[in-house]
């Protein structure tokens, strides 16, 4: 067994036989000619033939990889009409009295060189596009056959590099994977492989090409970028099970993506995602979450060496809201304390940080920090569907103060002529037993509750969740915790508020039915659990 490593561009595992892609022969000779007009006419008809072929490839791509990705070939057709490119070819024929093939090849080199020398990886990769269209013209001038593979059946297509048109021209049903010795992950081949859902490894190296033959067995791991040539049994077994697990996950995704979170008897629930940074939004959308149920704003503070400015925060919130395009985004205000230390807050060391100076307690005693965050949040609210959630609530007076400050911030924005949305929902975390017990008083003050089960459990059971020695006493399904959640749900609904759960318990599918029976309106889980919970919901029948 030999292992090669390149860059994986689509995460999946393929096992099969290697088939080497034989390139079209585009060797060009410089030939002196006299009739320059005849050469120009040859270029013209070769270009016409190329356009026709590209049109056919475009139509194939349209079906297989969608319009956005097929557009490359439309642009390739336009590149064939590019004035500078054509003038260059005609000039070379005219001034040097050379054959059309040579003029096209020189022009291609010059344009490719121009792109290669740009300071941008994406533009450098465009050199391949120029080569691709030019080689097509040359092949049409030469009358050489198109490139391709020689083997039968399913194959792992291997090549030095593949042009986009070569990638699309292959019979998709026969391609298990792509492996190229060169090329960049910015190349269209990489992009197309991703869209064809075919694992691909780019840049496996020259040694890889030198070692392979048609029919060799290989495993391609698109997750890690590894290619195993003639794999041993242990490797084979390991990757087969990886392949199986991945296929199971994708099957679930395929089956459940776009489906409603609805029980067999028709009860609906929202399944949202928890995230800790704007960078996680991709995972939220990929896993088809209905919104963001908990956006921890701490990253803004943890990543900075001093208090993040209003502008910095505004930009991050705006980006999150815009990326979610109108879906609910619930952002939790600052939740740091002695366990999540940030130097510039200069928090004193505490005996008992879980019960100490943290979260809303910092916000209410240092209102300047709180106001900056609220201003940024309200300003961003016009870009989407925002909810603001306050952590560590224990009393009615805290909520009164929060609502008063929100009112002041809005009034200030109004005076300054700065826009904000009137429909921002305000909610509180239910993560202390106190909040759950007085939830009848708190519910009329807010739009929603969100139960933070991790803290609620540790405070209710008097169990430090960081201490492994007492794990056996920290029963996450403890009846006391569940009763507090149920009580909060009842009080929320009596007062026209909705209730979600955003702690780890929300993803515990052994409790999904219990939560549904309590009337929980929303479960917010980490993005990778969204579909697992959806699957559970869709198999529950509350009518029995």
């Amino acid at each position: 067994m030999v292992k090669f490593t390149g860059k994986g561009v689509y995460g999946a595992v393929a096992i099969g036989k290697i088939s080497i892609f034989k390139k079209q022969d585009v060797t060009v000779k410089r030939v002196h000619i006299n009739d320059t007009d005849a050469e120009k006419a040859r270029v013209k008809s070769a270009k016409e033939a190329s356009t026709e072929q590209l049109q056919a490839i475009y139509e194939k791509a349209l079906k297989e990889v969608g319009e956005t990705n097929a557009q490359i070939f439309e642009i390739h057709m336009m590149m064939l009409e590019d004035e500078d490119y054509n003038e260059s070819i005609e000039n070379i024929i005219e001034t040097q009295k050379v054959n059309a093939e040579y003029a096209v090849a020189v022009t291609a080199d010059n344009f490719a060189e121009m792109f290669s020398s740009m300071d941008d990886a994406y533009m450098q990769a465009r050199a391949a596009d120029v080569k691709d269209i030019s080689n097509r013209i040359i092949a049409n001038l030469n009358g050489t056959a198109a490139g391709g593979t020689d083997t039968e059946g399913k194959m792992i297509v291997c090549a030095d590099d593949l042009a986009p048109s070569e990638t699309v021209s292959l019979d998709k049903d026969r391609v298990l994977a792509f492996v190229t010795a060169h090329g960049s992950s910015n190349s269209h081949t990489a992009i197309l492989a991703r869209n064809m859902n075919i694992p691909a490894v780019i840049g496996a190296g020259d040694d890889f090409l030198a070692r392979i033959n048609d029919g060799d067995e290989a495993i391609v791991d698109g997750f890690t970028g590894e290619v195993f040539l003639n794999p041993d049994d242990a490797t084979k077994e390991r990757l087969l099970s990886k392949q199986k697990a991945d296929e199971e996950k994708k099957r679930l995704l395929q089956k459940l993506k776009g489906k409603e979170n609805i029980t067999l008897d028709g009860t609906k629930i929202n399944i949202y995602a928890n995230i800790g940074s704007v960078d996680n939004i991709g995972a939220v959308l990929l896993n088809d979450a209905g919104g963001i149920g908990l956006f921890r704003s701490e990253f803004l503070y943890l990543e900075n060496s001093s208090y993040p400015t209003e502008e910095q925060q505004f930009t991050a919130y705006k980006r999150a809201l815009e990326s979610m395009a109108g879906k609910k985004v619930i952002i939790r205000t600052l939740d740091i304390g002695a366990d999540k230390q940030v130097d510039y807050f200069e928090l004193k060391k505490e005996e008992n940080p879980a019960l100490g100076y943290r979260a809303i307690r910092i916000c209410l005693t240092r209102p300047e920090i709180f106001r900056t965050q609220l201003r940024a949040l309200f300003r961003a609210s016009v870009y989407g569907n925002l909810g603001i959630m306050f952590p560590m609530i224990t009393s009615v007076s805290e909520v009164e103060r929060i609502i008063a400050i929100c009112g002041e911030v809005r009034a200030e924005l109004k005076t300054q002529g700065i826009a904000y949305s009137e429909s921002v929902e305000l909610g509180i975390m239910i993560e202390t037993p106190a909040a759950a017990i007085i939830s009848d008083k708190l519910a009329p003050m807010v739009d929603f509750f969100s139960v933070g089960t991790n803290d609620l459990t540790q405070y209710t059971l008097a169990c430090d969740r960081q201490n492994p020695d007492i794990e056996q006493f920290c029963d996450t399904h403890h009846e006391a915790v569940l009763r507090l959640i149920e009580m909060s749900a009842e009080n929320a609904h009596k007062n026209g508020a909705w209730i979600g759960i955003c702690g780890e318990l929300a993803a515990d599918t052994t409790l999904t039915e219990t939560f549904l029976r309590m009337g929980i309106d929303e479960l917010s889980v980490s993005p990778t659990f969204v579909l697992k919970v959806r699957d559970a919901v869709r198999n529950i029948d509350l009518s029995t």
Partner: protein
Amino acid sequence: MVKKTVTVTNEQGLHMRPAGVLAKAVKDHPDCEVILYANGKTIKAKAPMQIMAAGMKKGCEVEIVCEGADEQAVLDEIAGMFEAGFGE
């Protein structure tokens, strides 16, 4: 002759797709010449390769100059495309 200065709004700059969309739009008006000035370069807007080669990144200022038939309408159309991020 009419002109207007716009800013590139596309995250990845004027890469292949927007360049293609722009060149295609300009070609629909063969009687109006459209020239772009950006990054110290003069770019014929109907040539996709020139557009790409100019390396116009996000935030880059571009002066659009139109001359010929319906020049104001063409200018408005092209400027609008820049502002809309070429539909991205």
